[in-house]
């Protein structure tokens, strides 16, 4: 991984993040015309409007407001929430651990499930195992996370009466309890994405199994099995890395919704509930938080992709 290449990729990351911040800022300040009017509603008295203008610094020219906002962002001051009149940063950190844990758990499940499934399906092309995985993944993709969540609740709480959905246990009380209540939501988020990754790995592996270098491997005396595992698999995994990148962004989106289904006090629920209150500073900060996180993930995945594939080492 040459230094030149790292510099170039880092520069593109900076550009992307700046663009992300401009898009987010524009969405909350340019799109709605006068944010204060939208927040306080049409009947608000002029004095109240003026007060809010001053508090949010809305009367400064746009570029200046953007710079003030960004510098605040960099200093970790994400503004104060209207609804809770508390600094946004404090609100976020407590909820972040839920969303992060949920996302990581889901990501781990995807890796554990999708890679073997994709491999089995490709190795048994056309045979029963392949068709079973094909059908299973097709169904898996058809059920969105929030729907799967509801169905899981229906099965495990209504019919089997194992878990009651409302029982959220904070990690400080008991870590196993905390993880236990994340299992179902993580499954709800993971299943559709695991299906996508499994199908992608299967087609990528089938492509590589038909390539010239696999035929060369066979001509050297490798068994079919060895040719797949020692040669085709690594080449097939490279494009899968990019799919995992896209999946990471979808997992975060999925967990936002699933938190609502399972009543988990994560970023998602806070975000959704703030909409009703028009809590611009809080929502804007969260949107930026998530968007930058996703941009970072995509950047890291891209680096991983380059590191794994020797051909791209510029």
């Amino acid at each position, binding site marked *: 991984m040459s230094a030149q290449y790292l510099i170039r990729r880092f520069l593109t990351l900076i550009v992307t993040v700046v663009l992300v911040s401009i898009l987010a800022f524009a969405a909350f300040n340019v799109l*709605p015309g006068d944010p204060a009017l939208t927040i306080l509603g049409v009947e608000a008295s002029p004095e109240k409007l003026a007060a809010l203008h001053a508090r949010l610094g809305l009367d400064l020219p746009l570029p200046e407001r953007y710079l003030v906002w960004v510098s605040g962002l960099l200093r970790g001051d994400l503004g104060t929430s209207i609804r809770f009149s508390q600094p946004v940063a404090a609100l976020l950190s407590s909820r972040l651990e839920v969303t992060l844990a949920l996302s990581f758990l889901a990501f781990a499940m995807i890796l554990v499930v999708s890679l073997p499934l994709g491999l089995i399906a490709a190795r048994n092309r056309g045979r029963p195992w392949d068709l079973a995985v094909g059908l299973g993944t097709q169904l898996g993709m058809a059920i969105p996370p929030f729907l799967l969540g509801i169905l899981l609740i229906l099965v495990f709480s209504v019919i089997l009466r194992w878990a009651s959905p409302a029982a959220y246990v904070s990690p400080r009380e008991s870590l196993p309890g905390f993880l236990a209540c994340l299992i179902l939501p993580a499954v709800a988020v993971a299943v559709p994405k695991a299906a996508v990754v499994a199908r992608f790995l299967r087609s990528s592996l089938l492509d590589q199994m038909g390539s010239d270098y696999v035929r060369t491997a066979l001509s050297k005396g490798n068994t079919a099995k060895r040719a797949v595992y020692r040669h085709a698999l690594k080449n097939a995994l490279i494009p899968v890395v990019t799919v995992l990148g896209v999946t990471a962004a979808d997992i975060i*989106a999925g967990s936002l919704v699933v938190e609502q289904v399972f009543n988990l006090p994560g970023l998602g629920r806070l975000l959704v509930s703030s909409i009703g209150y028009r809590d611009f500073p809080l929502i804007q900060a969260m949107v930026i938080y998530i968007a930058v996180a*996703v941009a970072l993930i995509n950047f890291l995945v891209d680096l991983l992709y380059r590191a794994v594939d020797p051909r791209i080492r510029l």
Partner: protein
Amino acid sequence: MGAKRNPSLVAGLAIVGILTGVFILGFLFTPYDANLMDLSSRFLSPSAAHPFGTDNFGRDVLSRVMIGTRTAFLVGLLTVLIGGSAGLAIGATAGYSGGLVDEAAMRLMDAMMAFPGILLALVVVTVLGPGTGKLILALGLMFVPSFARIARGGFLQYRDREFVLSARSWGAGPVRIMALHILPNAASPMIVAASVGFANAVIAEASLSYLGIGVQPPDPSWGRMLSESQAFLFKAPWCTLAPAVAIALAVLGFNLLGDGIRAARKGGGQ
């Protein structure tokens, strides 16, 4: 394309066909008025009179699901049209012209891609308030980056092919070359993406309506039916299952259709 050789296409077409039938039928006839409340017949379990049972206001669940296809199709179609056309325009120009235009377009797409689908919709709803029109705008926007990438890939791949150079040597302008020479060849991955995009749009609409910030009453929505029925999940599970199956079926149908088209075009689309 024989059924035997392309099961996904056949299954996809069948499901989408049925849903389209229901969608059209929904305009003309529904067993009951979807919004007719009859408090005397609340929570009736599925029966001949009410194949999908009734909900907490005694409304016929089957009728409401039929009407729900209207929103699903409307949102799906418009999202794919808006997002697809914008994505195609951006992707094609970036792929064909390359250089700075390509670099700039791709950086913009990266930035937009940083907002996971639901987030983009949340922003639009927060700022402009909920509403079906705004929702479609948001979902269309969400669809642009992924479609632009696919379109760019197609145009990049064919840009320097010899038959394109030949067309240039005959004096064809860039627009003619992109539309007449490259697009027909680069179309199949985009058609697949449109079909899968339709499925994703249905999921997104259902998720947002479930959160209460998607389609607003009186517009019908499977997602909202799900959130309303969750409260009495134990007493009347059928109120939840009916819209759930409808969503899953729609998504399955369009995903299968996408797979089928990809398999069918693989041969011809060389």
